[in-house]
């Protein structure tokens, strides 16, 4: 039985996960240069990966409890692909963010540039996660031409995303207060 089923033409793999690991460190480095302290180098990756690690089990539990979860292995794979997507997006936005952040006089603008890059990359990562979860849930064949998520699955994912963004946003705000003070 073939296990080959990739609904999207491109799925980020190993190097993308490496970018996902290094990207937040680079963003932390930019903030560290402006703040003249090394703390953001560690805090930024900790916030990003800590929040994902803390909240991802909740998504699986809620999805499984509502009967909308794909198999655990596919959920793990979906998170891997989404993290890779986050890493690739952040890699492409790193140079513009670095330039905008470092060429600004106001530290607020520095933080805004870094935040915009992380937020955009996170948005693309979440979008990819949603797609991967839906395509893992639906059968490849006999499948419909379009695969649509159920209302329950959409609701679970939306609530989880909002909570994750809220937690990460609050931690990011605390980091901003520390960097800007």
């Amino acid at each position: 039985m073939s296990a080959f089923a990739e609904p999207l033409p491109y799925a980020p793999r190993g190097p993308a996960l490496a970018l996902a690991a290094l990207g937040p460190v680079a963003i932390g480095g930019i903030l560290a240069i402006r703040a003249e302290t090394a703390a953001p180098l560690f805090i930024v990756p900790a916030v990003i990966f800590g929040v994902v690690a803390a909240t991802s089990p909740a998504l699986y539990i809620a999805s499984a409890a509502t009967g909308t979860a794909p198999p655990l292995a596919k959920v793990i794979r979906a998170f891997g692909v989404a993290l890779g997507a986050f890493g690739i997006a952040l890699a492409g936005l790193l140079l513009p963010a670095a330039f905008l952040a470092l060429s600004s006089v106001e530290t607020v603008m520095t933080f805004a540039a870094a935040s915009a890059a992380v937020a955009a990359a996170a948005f693309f990562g979440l979008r990819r996660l949603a797609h991967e979860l839906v395509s893992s849930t639906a059968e490849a064949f006999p499948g419909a031409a379009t695969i649509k998520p159920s209302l329950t699955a959409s609701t679970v994912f939306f609530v989880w995303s909002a909570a994750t963004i809220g937690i990460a946003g609050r931690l990011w705000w605390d980091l901003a207060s520390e960097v800007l003070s």
Partner: protein
Amino acid sequence: MMSLDLIALGYAAIGVAIAIGAALAGRRPTAGDVLMLTAVWPLAGPMLLFGDRDRADDHELVSALARASTSPLASVLPDAETARVLQAQLREASSRLADLDHVLARPDFDPASAQRRASELTARGSSAAAATAQLRVRTLDQLRDLRERYRSELDEVRELMAQLVTQAELVRLQPSIAQASSELVRELVSRVEGLGDLFAYQASLEYEPAPDRSA
């Protein structure tokens, strides 16, 4: 705020570092490449590092198999890891064909010119030089033959991929013929695996010992 001077200096330094890295890795950047890397390394760096191998056909086998996998043909397709190995084989063959095209386009690799040169040397009585020139003519002929073989094999593989995608649509309408279509998949896999024989043939050309000219 970092001054523009410092940002520009840091930017240029990264470009120079990439140029040094490329030189150490054996890429041998020209003076123009170094200037380009210093000025626009986010553009020139990937070009220098990845060259022209990042082409549309780099993923066409995986893409064709992905499209076929959403049909009843999925059961007879190779698994993902095998598909990636086959894609790498196909990419290597495409890359070698591009290299051969590039090499044979050079003015000094024109077989007609080489043959004329050999004839001139023979007429002049320079037998040793003429023998070397004839060897060059034979080598160029072998390269042209090799290129034609690569081109022919890749054309056949691409036609098989196109047929696979078409067959997948047919099987979607008539699922009963899915098993019968497995022969097409086997042929495609066999053709791509057969590119390895072409690589071996090319290697044998490259390592052919020089003729004994001591006589």
